[in-house]
């Protein structure tokens, strides 16, 4: 009997200890709950003062607010901390708490965080448009329309990018970073071969001819005229630069000439093979910094990487130290400087208890002061002011030739992925068939027919 009592006590002890585990969890959450409940109360006077004085920055003596901000790769991306530090001097009462969700699955993790109740993010960074579309449809982020009209934000400063992410007339993010695609080239390789550098005004035919001219297939001294990363954007989206087509069209026959150009280049050894790149997982930066690639089409984010990696000695300056950039090649009859863009934006969450304070932060980062901070770290802000432009071109390590500076003047910017209701699914389908075409699983015609078919199934 004694033993039974003992075992009962033991068992009861286990159950209690298990319950203990649970309750300790609730205990750790418990302090958070009153805090979030208090938060609106704290925010209320602040919003009033913000309305009165029309800027949170001036709320001297206002109650302290903490904003939780979702970002990625805090350690390797210098501008997050720079923005927080700079904002601290403008709004000393606002504490920005950064939460690093990692870059690999950032939008997936963020969407999971913002699903259902219980999220405590106030400001979230929007990495791509499919992820943005998901958050809008989930009602996870606020429409910024009222704030934008109340504060008189001039959206024309964003070079038309905000129009491409407007959802039923409403805007849910404000971009603070705007990368656009340019053509990087290795000047030493052109000098060695005695070929003139690429220019800011090249048609695709001229670009193709130049890539072929630079190519050397002789064993041991191999030079690739150009290089395409495995992303769909690097090949397929040449086709949307004519301003007449987008990836939402539903009929993708217009992509054929560009697939033909690239696959013919592959066949003739002008660029590395897609299947090789996929098998070895070669990163574009490793390809270009290896010194055997004459040209590389890539986003302007690579400018900061080039400068930093050459300075740190990670890239061998003898192989790729003498580099330049020019504008993207353009189709016949299209204005030079038409290129692809990718915006990084900020949104205020619907779950935020302090949306007004969050908006002030978003407005500041996406505004001209935030732009200057971005430019100082070598990144391209969404508002390309003269000041930001000269900050970037004046960076130590930025190519000194005039053509490289001129290359930063964009005439038409088309987002890699504009907003559409089913953009996430369309994106996946196009990605998949891009892989099929590039790896030779499907002919170009078969792949395009499959894309048409798949997207028809999604949009219907």
């Amino acid at each position: 009997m004694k033993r039974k009592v003992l075992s009962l006590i033991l068992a009861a002890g286990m159950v209690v200890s298990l319950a203990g585990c649970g309750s300790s969890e609730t205990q750790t959450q418990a302090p958070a709950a009153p805090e979030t409940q208090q938060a609106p109360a704290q925010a209320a006077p602040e919003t009033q003062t913000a309305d009165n004085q029309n800027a949170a920055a001036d709320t001297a003596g206002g109650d302290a607010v903490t904003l939780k901000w979702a970002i990625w790769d805090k350690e390797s991306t210098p501008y997050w901390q720079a923005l927080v530090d700079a904002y601290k001097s403008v709004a000393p009462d606002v504490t920005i708490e950064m939460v690093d969700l990692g870059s690999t699955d950032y939008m997936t993790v963020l969407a999971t965080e913002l699903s259902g109740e219980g999220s405590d993010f106030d400001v979230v960074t929007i990495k791509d448009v499919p992820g943005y579309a998901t958050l809008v449809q989930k009602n996870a982020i606020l429409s910024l329309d009222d704030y934008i009209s109340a504060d008189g934000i001039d959206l024309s400063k964003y070079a038309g990018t905000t129009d491409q992410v407007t959802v039923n007339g409403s805007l849910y993010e404000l971009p603070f970073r705007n990368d656009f695609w340019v053509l990087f080239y290795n000047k030493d390789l052109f000098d060695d071969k005695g070929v003139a550098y690429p220019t800011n005004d090249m048609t695709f035919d001229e670009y193709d001819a130049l890539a072929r001219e630079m190519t050397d297939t002789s064993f041991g001294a191999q030079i690739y005229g150009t290089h395409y990363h495995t992303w769909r954007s690097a090949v397929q989206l040449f086709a949307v630069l004519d301003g007449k087509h987008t990836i939402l069209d539903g009929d993708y026959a217009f992509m054929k000439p560009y697939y033909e150009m690239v696959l013919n280049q592959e066949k003739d050894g002008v660029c590395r093979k897609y299947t090789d790149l996929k098998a070895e997982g070669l990163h574009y930066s490793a390809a270009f910094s290896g010194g055997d690639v004459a040209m590389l089409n890539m986003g302007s984010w690579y400018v900061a990487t080039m400068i930093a990696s050459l300075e740190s000695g990670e890239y061998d300056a003898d192989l790729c130290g003498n580099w330049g950039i020019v504008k993207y090649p353009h189709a016949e009859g299209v204005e030079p400087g038409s290129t692809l863009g990718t915006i990084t934006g900020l949104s205020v969450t619907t779950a935020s208890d302090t949306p007004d304070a969050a908006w002030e932060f978003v407005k500041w980062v996406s505004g001209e002061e935030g732009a200057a901070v971005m430019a100082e770290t070598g990144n391209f802000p969404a508002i390309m002011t003269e000041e930001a432009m000269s900050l970037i071109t004046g960076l130590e390590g930025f190519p000194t030739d005039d053509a490289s500076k001129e290359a930063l003047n964009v005439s038409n910017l088309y987002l890699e992925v504009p907003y559409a209701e089913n953009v996430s699914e369309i994106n996946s389908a196009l990605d998949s068939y891009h892989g099929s075409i590039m790896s030779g699983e499907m002919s170009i015609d078969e792949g395009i027919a499959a894309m048409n078919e798949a997207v028809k199934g999604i949009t219907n």
Partner: protein
Amino acid sequence: MTKGLSRQKKRDLVAYSFIAPNFIGFAVFTLIPIVFAFALAFLNWDGSNPITFAGLENFKQLAGDVFFKAALKNTIIYCIGTVPLTMIASLALAIILNQKVVGRGIFRTLSFFPYVASLVAVTSVWKMLFHPSKGPINNILYTYFHVPMEQLPQWFTGGLVLLSMILFSVWKYMGYYMVIYLAGLQGISAELYEAASLDGANTWQKFRFITWPQLRSTTFFVVVMLTINCFKVYDIAIMLAGGGSGELTTSSTVLVYYIYQKAFIDWKLGYSSAVAMVLFLMVFVVTMIQFRGQKKYQ
């Protein structure tokens, strides 16, 4: 406190309290989600907005979905290829390494090693070995078998990618099933073999009439586990065939990948659950058939 309870009830209570810690965790994190997934297959939900009723709409959509059909086909081919091959390979290995050969301990360890090694690491090695232009396999084909450069096999795309996945899976998992077979083999009484030898049975007859029937329950376990694991394939496909941004083409996509994509990239939780139901049904039916077969022979 316990006065009012009968002896049996007290016993039950003790038993339940021992089961409870595990069962509560299982219920919260496994059982309820599974039941919810069943219900979700007939609903539309994106994880945030209100749930709406879909009826059989999700299942009707499956019929016209090319990616689903490709994933289903690839998963079935992968299973048909992997299950028998792994079973045969692991049984053969077990029989060989059950004999008194010199250094069998080393060979047993070596065959078990792929199972222990990290999948990500070994897929990287496979990708180097089978690299389309620089890999040693294709270089041997080119140099010694004079396969023209353009016709060298592309191991990770098109029609060959499933074969690569099957071969990889057999190589990686045969060591594990070999250990299970070894245990089975050691459970067979040596007297049976002695008696057979006296009756003049040859090696094949010993295998056919002693080893194979005696291993029936082991084989049943191996086949069931293999089938379930094969239908769940995901990591091998992503690691061997994942493209520039990790996406799989129609020649390499598998059901579990598609479930993940629909649920957490496109946030169609209902549709994704419908795909999961198809996967569940397939595993269920195949396992039921195997159970029936097992019972019939016993």
